[in-house]
């Protein structure tokens, strides 16, 4: 650290933001170089919650390793599990029955909603509005209750398994989800009235943290972060998996490239997710929810890659198999890691207060970055 001081120029101030700072939403440590209040450089220091999940997975079987992945991006745990299950299915050529596929998509979209709700509350709190946080958590609780009934868990679901889903949906699931849709449709309009149209909020967001489409692609940004810059990158549209090619929805894009554009993308994505759930909830086909698979899964020798769209962007699973019961090497491409790498580029030249707003619109989940 003392050596680092030598590189600072006169008038510069180095501030440590985190790892225990309320606005970093977890143990993210940013070393910010300031000139007055203007940001000259942001350097993330990672690893506070690094569990080396990739190494751990090398000694876990193809059924076991999925459970660990819930602990990465804990707000998209269904979708993480989904990506892993897809990759194993790709390797073993398992066909998931239609019922399992629809349940998976329903769960994915409910997860996306819950994740965006939490982001919305936390985002507003980051820029100084405390009330939305409680609104968001009230609505998110309804989704958690639905999840709990079917999966038995509220955060780390472990519900998707190779071949389909672990258990069938709860008999009340459809009714509960329909109730939730009715309830949440009114709430989302309330969200817009409360925050989106708010003058103070807008002035904090507009023109802050701009990233051009070219830079967004170069930095590997995905999800709402890239779509806020007008980059089409929704894997549900580009390479549809499960039943995403059979439902009607739009890939939400904004051209602003600033914090407000990213905010708007997520707000509209919530409406799109609601629409997907509405289309599917009465059309869950009958039959099996899980394909018959062997007790011990063995992937043939080779390499398999699957990509899914989480609430934060592209989640990739890269399995290298030597033909055994455990992966030889596994790599998780997490969306937050690449999105974070663009933070420095977005924040330079802005005031330190804006850094918190920019971080908020990146929707960072630290265990997803650290893995």
């Amino acid at each position, binding site marked *: 650290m003392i050596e680092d001081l030598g590189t600072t120029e006169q008038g510069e101030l180095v501030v440590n933001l985190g790892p225990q700072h309320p606005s970093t939403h977890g143990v993210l440590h940013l070393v910010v170089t300031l000139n007055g209040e203007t940001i000259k450089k942001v350097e993330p220091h*990672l*690893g506070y919650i*690094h569990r*080396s999940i*990739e*190494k*751990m997975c090398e*000694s*876990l079987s193809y059924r076991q390793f999925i459970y660990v992945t819930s602990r990465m991006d804990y707000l998209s745990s269904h979708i993480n599990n989904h990506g892993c299950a897809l990759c194993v299915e*790709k390797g073993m050529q398992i066909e998931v029955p239609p019922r399992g596929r629809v349940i998976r998509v329903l769960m994915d979209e409910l997860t996306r909603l819950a994740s965006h709700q939490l982001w919305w509350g936390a985002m507003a709190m980051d820029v100084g509005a405390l009330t939305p946080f409680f609104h968001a958590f009230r609505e998110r609780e309804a989704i958690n209750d639905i999840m709990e009934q079917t999966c038995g868990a509220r955060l780390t679901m472990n519900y998707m398994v190779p071949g389909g889903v672990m258990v069938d949906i709860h008999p009340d699931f459809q009714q509960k989800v329909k109730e939730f849709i009715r309830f949440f449709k009114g709430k989302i309009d309330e969200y817009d009235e409360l925050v989106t149209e708010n003058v103070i909020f807008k002035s904090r967001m507009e023109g802050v943290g701009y990233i051009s489409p*070219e*830079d967004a*692609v*170069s*930095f*590997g940004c*995905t999800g709402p972060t890239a779509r806020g810059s007008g*980059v*089409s*990158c929704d894997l549900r549209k*580009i390479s549809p998996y499960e039943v995403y090619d059979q439902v009607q929805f739009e890939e939400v894009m904004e051209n602003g490239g600033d914090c407000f554009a990213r905010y708007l993308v997520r707000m509209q994505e919530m409406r799109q997710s609601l629409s997907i759930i509405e289309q599917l909830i009465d059309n869950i086909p009958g039959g099996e929810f899980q394909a018959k698979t062997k007790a011990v899964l063995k992937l043939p020798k*080779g*390499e*398999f*890659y699957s*990509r899914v769209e989480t609430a934060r962007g*592209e989640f*990739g699973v*890269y399995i*290298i198999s030597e033909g055994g019961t455990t992966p*030889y*090497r596994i*790599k998780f*491409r997490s969306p937050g*890691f*690449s999105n*974070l*790498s*663009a933070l420095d*580029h977005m924040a330079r030249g802005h005031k330190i207060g804006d850094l918190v707003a920019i971080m908020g619109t990146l929707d960072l989940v630290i265990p997803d970055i*650290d893995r």
Partner: protein
Amino acid sequence: MQKDELKIKLSELLPSAAFEEGAEWPTILIDPRVWTDLARHIRSGIGLDFDYLFCLTAVDWKTHFTVVYHLTSTVHRHTLVVKIRLDRERPEVPTVSDIWRTAEFHEREAYDLMGIVFTEHPDLRRLFMTDEWIGWPLRKDYEDPVNMIKL
């Protein structure tokens, strides 16, 4: 561009490249010395435009390493996998962080956990582990009596 077209185009560009069969995406195996030139070509070559590096990782094969780059184009929607075989004694490969900015973080990760040295990288330091950490945790021969739990 279709898989076959892409293969023809790439073998024109680099006659020495070997293709790996049976993979989902076209996969080429190249020498680290030609990587920088090839990377520039496929990043902005006409009809190629591989502008998005979505995954960069390294694999320890006990006798050697491979660094694997997954590239796709947001214009043409085609995907390419580039593999570079590295010597275990001197695992060095030129950086591509000036071509794809996302590589800067991903290369630091591969350096930190696998010990791959990306030459000319602007800031090659440990990313997750502490600066004093000894060894490369994701290597197959890594042993740590304190921090490692064998399952």
